[in-house]
Structure formats: C-alpha cells, structure tokens
C-alpha cells in the first residue's frame, strides 16, 4: 500500500507542475462577435495590452472554445485557431512556451467567453531550490557552493604566496591606501578554470597560518607600472574549523587577494636632507618580516618620514637625493639605525669624496 502511494506521488508531481489552474497563472478572456473569425477592435486591443507580458512569460496556454459539433463550427474554430497561431508568430511567442488548445466546455469564470489565455506571471521570481555543499580540494582549500557548481570549481587553482621572496617578486607594497603599514599574512592567487563564469559568488575557505578571527582585513591587489599594492580593504572573515584557521574569501572571479593586518609597531622615522639637497624618493625594506614601504616625502622635499615602523635595526633604507645642479645620488641598502646616527652626507662623502666641503650635514632625527 505504501509503495502505491509513493508511486502515485511521483506521478502526480510533474502533473501539478503543468497544472495551469495553479495560482501562479494569470488569465484573461476574449469574446468573438457571433460567427466572426476575427476579434473585434475592442477585443484585439485588450489582447494587445497583454502581448508584452505573454512575450516575457515562460508559459502561455491559449484555450479556444468550440461551441458546437457541426461542420460549420469546426471551420470557424479552425480559422480562430489559425488566427492565434499567426498571432504567436507575429509577436514572437515561442513554440516552446506557448500552447494552443481547443476545448469544448464553457469557462467557469466567464461562461460567454470564446477564448481563455492563461500565462505565468513574468514578474514573479523563479523559485528554484538548489542544494549547497562543500568541496574539499586535495591541497586543503575548500569551497562552499551549489552542488551543480562543483564540477566547474574542481579545476580551480589556488596558490598561497607568503614567503618574503615570493612577496618581493611581486614588488608588493605593504601599506594600505591611507599609508598605514600592514603585516601581510598571505597573498592568494585564485585561478578559476578557463571559461568558467560563476553566476553567483562562492565562498572559498583557505587555510592560512598567522591569521586570527579579529583584526584581519582582506584586499584586492592592484598594480601600477612600478608596484603592486593592496586596495579596497574590507573586514576579512576568518573562522577556526577542524583545528584550522580558514580565511573565507567570497569571490566569483579569478584574481589576487591579500589578507593582512594593521601592524602594532609605532615608531616614526624622519630623515632630513642636508642643505643643498632635495629628497626625491625613499623606501624602507625588510625581509623578516617582509616589508616594503615608500617614504612620505614632504612637499618641500626637505624631509622624508616612515610611520608605524619596527625597531630601526631591522630595516634597511634606500633614498634618492638630488642636488641643485640636477645630479642624483642614491643611498642604497643602508641600515635605518646607522643612517639615523650618521647622516646622508657622510654616506655620500664615502662614495664621492669631492662633494663640496661647505655643505653642512643636518643630524637626522628619530622621533
């Protein structure tokens, strides 16, 4: 008995889906003048009011009522059928979505009507139930997505860059758009399989070391001709699951994404140039932890500063200076600590002893 009920349910389910009497269908009725094969002007206008909705609708059913059993009635019904067939072609109602029936019973809602048009409301959102699941890649990353999307996501390549050498190869600046220094936890390259366009965003879960549930910010990686740098920061979603710290990255496209946190280092270095020089650019670098920061050069080019820096012995600096004759001088790979205790000029003199003696070096300061 139970088996019979189950089979019955399975058989009736598609039938219900096709049931034009369900509430999802809208309807209107048309009347012909006596024995006419063409609709009157009024009725045709009424039909045209609905034509655009019919065009957009995913299912249209046109029921034409056959009112008698005589041969004359058959001819009349055939002509009316032909009229609606032509109408469907004229207004590009697809054969796949439009069906014309001939019925013999009167319509309950309008007993005098000759034609009933039923159509599914095109403005009503499609209700599709899709099952979600988690796919785990052998490399350890996971993805939350619809089960139907998994075959497309299996070919995704995710590469995590976190060693100083890899970050240095990217020439990645470790500051945000506001000039605050960042500690980079990782740069993740997501490459979806070729020609894959995901209709909705999916949530990649990437295991990373060093991240925490609080304080992590995710960025997209922008690039200009000289550097790459983090931009468009927003709070990163980090959760601990199965003993792993997972970065939950929402995306639907290939790209480079950065997860980073604001550094807690608070020192500011400020370097003044000696009289007769102007500073053109400056950079502070460190490989442990990885850091690559451009100096903020004052508008008058007489000083340059770095904010949120660690102890100066960990940092090397690089500066380009210019004298007023337009000669450029580079001070490369000098310890920030050493530079604070000596001066730009003593470094320049070591390299170029013929610098004018009357130049007076200003002492650099460390605030």
């Amino acid at each position: 008995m139970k088996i019979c009920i189950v089979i019955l349910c399975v058989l009736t389910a598609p039938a219900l889906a096709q049931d034009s009497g369900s509430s999802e269908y809208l309807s209107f009725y048309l009347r012909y003048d006596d024995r006419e094969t063409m609709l009157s002007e009024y009725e045709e206008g009424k039909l045209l009011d609905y034509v655009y909705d019919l065009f957009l609708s995913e299912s249209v059913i046109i029921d034409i009522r056959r009112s008698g059993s005589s041969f004359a009635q058959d001819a009349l019904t055939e002509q009316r059928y032909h009229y609606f067939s032509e109408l469907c072609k004229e207004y590009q109602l697809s054969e796949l979505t439009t069906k014309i029936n001939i019925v013999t019973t009167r319509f309950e809602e309008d007993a005098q009507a000759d034609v009933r048009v039923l159509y599914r409301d095109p403005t009503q959102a499609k209700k599709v139930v899709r099952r979600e699941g988690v796919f785990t890649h052998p490399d350890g990353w996971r993805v939350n997505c619809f089960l139907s999307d998994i075959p497309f996501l299996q070919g995704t390549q995710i590469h995590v860059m976190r060693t100083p050498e890899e970050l240095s190869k990217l020439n990645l600046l470790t500051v945000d758009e506001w000039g605050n220094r960042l500690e980079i936890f990782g740069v993740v390259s997501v490459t979806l399989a070729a020609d894959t366009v995901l209709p909705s965003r999916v949530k990649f879960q990437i295991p990373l070391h060093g991240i925490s549930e609080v304080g992590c910010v995710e960025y997209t990686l922008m690039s200009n001709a000289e550097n790459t740098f983090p931009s468009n920061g927003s709070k990163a979603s980090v959760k601990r699951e199965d003993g792993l710290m997972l970065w939950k990255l929402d995306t639907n496209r290939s790209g480079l994404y950065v997860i980073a946190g604001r550094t807690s280092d608070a020192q500011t270095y400020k370097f003044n140039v000696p009289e007769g020089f102007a500073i053109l650019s400056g950079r502070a670098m460190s490989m442990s932890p990885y850091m690559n920061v451009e100096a903020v050069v004052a508008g008058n080019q007489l000083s340059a500063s770095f904010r949120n820096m660690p102890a100066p012995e960990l940092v090397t600096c690089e500066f380009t200076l210019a004298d007023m004759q337009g000669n450029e001088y580079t001070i490369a790979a000098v310890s920030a600590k050493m530079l604070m205790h000596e001066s730009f000029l003593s470094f320049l003199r070591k390299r170029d002893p013929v610098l004018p003696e009357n130049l007076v070096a200003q002492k650099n300061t460390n605030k």
Partner: protein
Amino acid sequence: MNIRIVISAMMLPLASLSVAQPNSPLVRELDFEEVAQNYNTYNEKREPMSYLAGFSMEGDIQLLKKNPVQVMFNPLAKVDRGDCVLMRWDPVMRVWDKLAGNQLKNTTEGRNLYWAALIDSPGHYALMKELEKTGTTQLVLPSGCSAEEWRCVQQNMGVVCEGFAHTKSLSVPMPTLSPTARISMRYRKMGEPVQHLSDTVLGTLVSDFWKQPDAVNQTFEMSFASLK
C-alpha cells in the same frame, strides 16, 4: 560599443586605436612634462591640483557621442579612487573643468584592476587630486623689476602654476616650495627689454640667485647677482 584604452602613468608608448578604422579616435598619453610646458594644473577656481595622469583624445565628436571610449587608468598607490577627479582642459579659460557625473569605476581585465571612465568627446583629460594643504608663497622680484608672465613647476607634487599679470611679486598658490621647484618667467627691468628666465630652481645652492626664505611669511626675495 565601448572601446577600451588603458592609460598607465608610466606607460610611455602611446595608447592608440587601430589605424585600420579611419574614424576611430586617437588617444595618446599626456605626460607631466607636456603639462608643465603647455598647460597648468588649476581647477575652475584657479586652485592648484595635483596632476596624476592624463591623455589627449582626437576623433569625430558625433561618432564619439555614439560610441564613447572607455579609458582605463592604472590604479595609483596611496591614492584613493574616490579622491581622484577626472577633468577636461578648457583652452579658453586655461583651467581644468570637472567632468560632471563622470565617476571613475573599478574594472578588471584578467587579473588586473583599473579605474575606468567613459569619454565621449575629444580634448585633453587629466586625473587630478586636490592638494592637502593650501597657502601662498611669495616670490619677490628686486626693485625695478616686474614679471609679465611666470610659471612654477613642482614635479614631486604634480603641480604647475602660472600667472600673466604685470607684477613685482609672484604669488604661487602653494604653502611651501621644494628646492627643486622650477621657475620660468618673462621679466623686464626698468628701461630694458624683456628678458627670459627659464627653469631655474629655487634651491639654496644657487645662493646668489634666491635669498634665504623668510620662514614667517613664506616669502623669497630674488636677487639677480648670479645672472650677470
């Protein structure tokens, strides 16, 4: 159909469209040196702006109206997209006018992110940013001298200021000037013909030329001792 062109701040080869289409617009980069020589970086209120990148576009205006060109800029480090303004050169007023409603939008090509804007008429365009500090620096000429036309270029700030008034002191609308700021002017000493001074720097090494700045009033006094 939108045509896409990428403008990079450091890209010297010019971005141009296919020459196979005779009516297609021609786009070339406008570098800072060209702006420094021929234009300025003033906005509609004649306040100096900081020049970030720019381009010139030539083409049929009617075709451009129908098919606007999407110009893409490389993003600039430490510059927020929201702070950037796309401006168009007004050759009559010699200022850059803000393009109303034309906001830069993020767009991607492959893995690269760009800032994009739609351009539908020919002209010179620049991506500018407001200066954080405002103020004025006076460059005072020696007695008996007056400038007829002057220009001050400060490359590190991306600023070009100019003036055309018959004046004895140049009011540069910037709070400080770098020692590498370049000053050019046409000036006249009393009873002498017009002379040209081009691209001299304000640096203190040219000790006979500019005197030390007056730190209180941001005023530099000029001496012609070194010109002899």
